[in-house]
């Protein structure tokens, strides 16, 4: 991504850092992990650049087989460390995992936006929608799936290592499928993939929440 990535990072990430000491605990966690997501994006952009040069294969191969691996690994790392050393509480892990993915997507989208504007001169609303609802959601969903999964297996040693790696493997292949679709003639399917997954996740969360509410109400009335 070159120098633009660093400039965009300074513009977008620094306000998050400045806000961290001001806000309250839960919001602080949100800001912190959004910032960490951005840092991951910046770091991995350099790593991917080096790998691309070292491998010497075409860009399509690299973006569908190498970058999903490196990006998912680096995004999962802060979640894994948080779960191991601080807390494995499911709701917190869900929040920080989603925010890490969001921070990653924010910096990636911003950098690509600036680069595309410089390159093409202008871009359309459709481009913005595909980038936001596609890549934006993809990064958040992949990291969230790993985070939520870790919260299930964290307290069981025999599950933890294999379970975490298996979840990561799942996220990596999902990311690769998206990257392949979005670069092809089927890019609308690519954009629809994270959106469809997101809608299923939201539906499940809403149903679970409603069930909990009903249960609480029935317990209170009893």
């Amino acid at each position, binding site marked *: 991504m070159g120098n633009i990535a660093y400039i965009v990072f300074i513009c977008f990430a620094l306000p998050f850092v400045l806000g961290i000491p001001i806000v309250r605990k839960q919001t602080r966690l949100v800001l912190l992990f959004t910032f960490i997501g951005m840092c991951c994006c910046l770091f991995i952009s350099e790593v991917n650049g080096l790998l691309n040069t070292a491998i010497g*294969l075409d860009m*399509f*191969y690299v973006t*569908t*087989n*190498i970058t*999903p*691996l490196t990006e998912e690994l680096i995004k999962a790392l802060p979640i894994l460390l948080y779960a191991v050393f601080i807390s494995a509480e499911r709701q917190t892990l869900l929040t920080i995992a989603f925010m890490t993915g969001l921070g990653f997507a924010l910096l990636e989208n911003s950098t690509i936006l600036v680069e595309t504007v410089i390159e093409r001169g202008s871009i359309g609303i459709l481009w913005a929608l595909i980038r936001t609802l596609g890549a934006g959601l993809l990064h958040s969903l992949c990291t969230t799936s790993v985070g939520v*999964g870790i919260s*299930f*297996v964290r307290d*069981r040693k*025999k*599950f933890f290592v*294999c*379970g975490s*790696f*298996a*979840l*990561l*493997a*799942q996220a*990596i*292949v*999902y990311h*690769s*499928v998206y990257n*392949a*679709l979005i*670069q*092809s003639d*089927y890019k609308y399917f690519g954009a629809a993939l994270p959106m469809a997954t997101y809608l299923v996740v939201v539906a499940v969360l809403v149903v679970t929440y409603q069930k909990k509410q009903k249960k609480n109400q029935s317990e209170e009335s009893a």
Partner: protein
Amino acid sequence: MKILIVDTIGNAVLCAAALIGLFYSLIRFFKPKQAMYKKMVACALGCIFIERLYGIVQYAVAGDITPYFQIGSFGNIGCFLFLFSANYGAVDSLIDDGSAEVKKYRLIALAAPAAAVAAAIAILCSPSRPGKTITCAVEMLFAGASAYYSFKHLIIPKRYSDFLSDLRFFHFLSLVLAAGVAIEDILWCYNVTEQIMWIVPYLILLVPVVALAPALERGTKKWEI
């Protein structure tokens, strides 16, 4: 090109079957108070679905699966890891306390990873590029680890694992899954071009993909948490 058609159809059928199995297991196994074992198996089906989707997308977009390292293998690796985690983490310690009595079954069960290692060696000796063969060989090692516990739980007598005896068919299906993936990888690495040969692994794989979730549900009816 004909191989591509068989491959695409095979992947599409497996993808659809895995998606149905995934939805079935999500609805049945992700209810409150369900064992982690079942959730792990649901995730394994999710891995199969994504792996097959990757195959379809690669053929549609790139025209062929790459001859180098291909990330779709992570789908199979994830699937075997989930099955391994479920068997090793949830139930193995309940039936095997490390006593000498069970040693015989532990040793016999080693036949499954041995077969996987043999498949890995055969793959490594194939004429394909190292990136492709190494990926498939690594896949076989994970399949072997998963198959060890599946085979062990399949052959262990009922007196050691009364609650597991109903899961025999499920373990048999897990072994069939590992065998199907092994055959598929061997055919791929040896660049086999006969269409009929390619139908074999897809038919073998279709059985466990379709039946894994129902077999697990039937086998765990007695389980209570």
